[in-house]
């Protein structure tokens, strides 16, 4: 008798052994919703929709590589960084303690450029034209509705040390306005302004009206305007206008400073006048590291350029001594130091008012390299560790109670056969959990629900079989025949039910994302395991149970 099921026992022991090994060797991975973490979906930013499919694909590949390097260096355990479709990237980071920092590291393009800071006189002539461009683009009425300036600001309204309009640095006095007392160097520009003023007292100066005196270089030239923090949003909107960009002089760009500047109790942002073409970019960077500068103990990033970059840097710093060079990160000026002497391949980026961690992160992303294009966050799901822990605790209790209920019902209802079913269910659970870790799948919250649901399916299979056996026994078949017939009759229903559910599971896996996918994976593994457990394990257990009896002994079903 033993012979007939020795092979079966070997198969079961093998399956249990393999799954048990996987479960023991690599812990079951918990999903982000259970242990806390961040799930991000990023996409290549293509606002004009001009990239071809191949280009999007290759840009995504490049971005993927850089993100891997960055996240590796950031040091998160077992990050998931995958490409989905042709232009999306999924990043999953578990057990973070600072989401915002991680996001900054992932999402920052880190495109670094060095540009010459030009004197503001480069744009002065163009200012009236820029104002007119804004008026043309947005229309007078809507600008007036916005509360656009009709005159150049009086400096004394804001802060005595801030002059109201570009001077070249020497003779301006507080309270002066360009309209009434233009500085000699800017006479031409101011004349135009004055003429316009004569024509129409109420003329709109949406842009010029926001500009205040900014910073100077060591040659005494002003290189930036200050803009009151309250006006930055408005000014940024003007800067983005196509008409505005067209009206700018060639090879000049206007760029904001990254951090606000506190002065006289108010906050300003500097708008730098820069040479549009960068003379050096982050490509030439060899290394970067964070440190504190010795003078003020402020965080800074030390950088080292490669040989070619060093040569360029040396050349530029020789020619442009005493001028300012703007270090531009993702279109914002991080710092604009004055060139005090020739610099070869080493320099530093001073970070005004930054934390040490920010400097460290900047150094990290600079080392890893810039993303080829900015990425856009399409989807973000963050679960704090405490919520995750609650879910685990509650899920565990609910799961245990549910399983105890199932065991109780089965044993009460089917007696000895119920005990066999419970053993088969235990093996089933081991197979599912082992299967999940073998496939490297993660257990999510909906996954637990899927698991519990497939326990329901496994129970159903056993119920179908036992009911059939009871019917056969009722028809006065011998126990052994009844068991065989019972299994035989239940097969078609079990197969059909399992396959239809499997179809649903596979489709969910195909179309689902994140949590739903977790559900689909557990459901699919659960169904396969449930089929095996009902049709093979329960059957074998029955054979063992019957082998201890003589043919005519009654069985307990």
């Amino acid at each position, binding site marked *: 008798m033993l012979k007939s099921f020795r092979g079966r026992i070997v198969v079961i022991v093998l399956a249990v052994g393999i799954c048990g090994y996987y479960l023991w060797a690599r812990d079951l991975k918990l999903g982000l919703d259970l242990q806390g973490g961040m799930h991000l979906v990023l996409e290549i930013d293509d606002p004009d929709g001009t990239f071809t499919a191949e280009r999007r694909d290759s840009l995504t590949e490049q971005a993927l590589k850089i993100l891997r390097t960055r996240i590796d260096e950031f040091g998160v355990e077992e990050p998931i960084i995958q490409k989905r479709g042709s232009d999306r990237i999924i990043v999953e980071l578990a057990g973070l303690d600072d989401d915002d920092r991680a996001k900054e590291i992932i999402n920052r393009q880190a495109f670094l450029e060095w540009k010459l800071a030009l004197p503001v006189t480069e744009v002065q002539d163009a200012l009236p034209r820029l104002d007119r461009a804004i008026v043309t683009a947005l229309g007078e009425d809507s600008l007036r509705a916005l509360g656009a300036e009709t005159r150049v600001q009086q400096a004394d309204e804001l802060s005595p040390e801030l002059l109201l309009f570009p001077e070249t640095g020497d003779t301006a006095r507080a309270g002066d306005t360009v309209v009434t007392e233009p500085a000699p160097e800017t006479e031409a520009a101011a004349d135009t302004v004055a003429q316009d003023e004569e024509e129409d007292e109420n003329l709109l100066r949406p842009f010029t009206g926001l500009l205040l005196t900014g910073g100077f270089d060591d040659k005494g030239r002003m290189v930036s305007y200050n803009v009151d923090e309250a006006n930055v949003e408005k000014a940024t909107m003007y800067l983005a206008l196509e008409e505005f960009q067209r009206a700018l002089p060639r090879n000049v760009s206007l760029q904001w400073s990254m951090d606000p500047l506190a002065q006289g109790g108010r906050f300003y942002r500097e708008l730098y006048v820069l040479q549009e073409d960068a003379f050096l970019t982050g490509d030439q960077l060899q290394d970067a590291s964070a440190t504190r500068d010795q003078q003020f103990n402020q965080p800074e990033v030390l950088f080292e350029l490669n040989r070619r970059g060093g040569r360029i840097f040396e050349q530029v710093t020789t020619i442009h001594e005493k001028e300012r060079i703007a270090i531009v990160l993702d279109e914002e000026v991080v710092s604009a130091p004055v060139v005090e002497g020739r610099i070869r391949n080493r320099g530093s980026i001073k970070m005004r008012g930054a934390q040490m961690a920010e400097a460290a992160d900047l150094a990290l992303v600079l080392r890893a390299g810039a993303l080829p294009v900015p990425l856009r966050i399409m989807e973000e799901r963050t679960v704090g560790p405490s919520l995750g822990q609650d879910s685990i605790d509650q899920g565990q209790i*609910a799961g245990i109670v*549910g399983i105890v209920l199932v065991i109780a019902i089965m044993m009460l209802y089917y007696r000895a056969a119920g005990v066999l079913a419970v053993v088969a269910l235990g093996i089933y659970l081991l197979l599912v959990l082992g299967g999940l870790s073998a496939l490297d799948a993660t257990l999510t919250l909906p996954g637990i629900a899927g698991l519990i649901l497939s326990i329901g399916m496994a129970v159903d299979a056993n119920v179908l079989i036992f009911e059939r056996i009871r019917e056969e026994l009722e028809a006065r078949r011998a126990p052994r025949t009844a068991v065989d017939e019972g299994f035989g009759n239940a097969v078609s229903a079990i197969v059909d039910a399992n396959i239809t559910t499997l179809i649903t599971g596979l489709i969910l896996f195909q179309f689902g994302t994140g949590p739903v996918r977790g559900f689909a994976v557990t459901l699919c593994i659960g169904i396969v395991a449930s089929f095996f457990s009902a049709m093979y394990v329960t059957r074998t257990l029955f054979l063992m149970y019957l082998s201890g009896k003589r043919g005519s002994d009654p069985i307990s079903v």
Partner: protein
Amino acid sequence: MWLFHKSKYEFIRLRRKAYVVSGVVLALGITGIGMNVVRTGTWQNYGVDFTGGVLVQIRFDQETSDSDLREALGGVNAPPITRFGQENEFVVRAPIDEESNLDEVADDIAAQVAVTYDRDGFEIVRRESVGAKVGEELQGQAAMAILFSFVLTLLYIAIRFEIRFGVAAIIATAHDILITLGLLALFRVEISLPTVAAILTILGYSLNDTIVVFDRIRENLNKRGGRREDPYRLVNRSINETLPRTVLTSGTTLAVLLSLLILGGAVIRPFTLVLILGVLIGTYSSIFIASPALLEIQRRYGTADPREKERKRAARRAAAV
């Protein structure tokens, strides 16, 4: 113990009453959908997964109320706030438009809360931001998933059984999905990705139940004399024969789901509710909808039994002669 053994309930005779019950529930659901359309413009209460938007879940250390939080988030203009499970936990949902930055919307909410409440007095335990574009895609994917599994499972049944079984299963499944969607709309249950998973599970569960009954009908039909038995009696007998299994399986599944509902925590509560609803509807429909539908199809479009056809053809020939 053998519950409902040898039961002889006249399920098929009750079918007209069942149609009325289904019709009323369906009408309620349609009313719910209509009310949603009038009030909000969408037929279901779509969550941020599908509309795009930002969800921020905040856990406070101190007792606080909905109205206090609403005040902190801008009073009348505050985004919708709902209490989440525990006493001092709230979910804030904010819509977004194509232009706005997902990050900023969520940060804004946190910043506004920090103005009124002590910075250390609360914790953001969950943040979900979905871009409008992704939301639209997910909506499309969910619809595709439901449609695909619908078509494939029915194809499978049509092959494994006879075509009329497949059609009857379509009717029963469609009935279940329509009733579920109607009730979801009526109670304004939030439709999120897990809810869609739950709806698909219902689809699977309901089919599972229907298949077990159909399997018995198929078996009884293929037994000696099965084709000659009165179809109404045969179907009714098949339902009664599978009743012990139906009750035990549904009962066990419900026991597990109830423990999940009561002890499983607030995160999966909507999900579990939908599943419980689905188990009840699925069990009901396999008895009162799927089987009567099978009979109706047979009554109207004749039998698929070849011998029966042969007999009819012979009768027609005889009549012609």
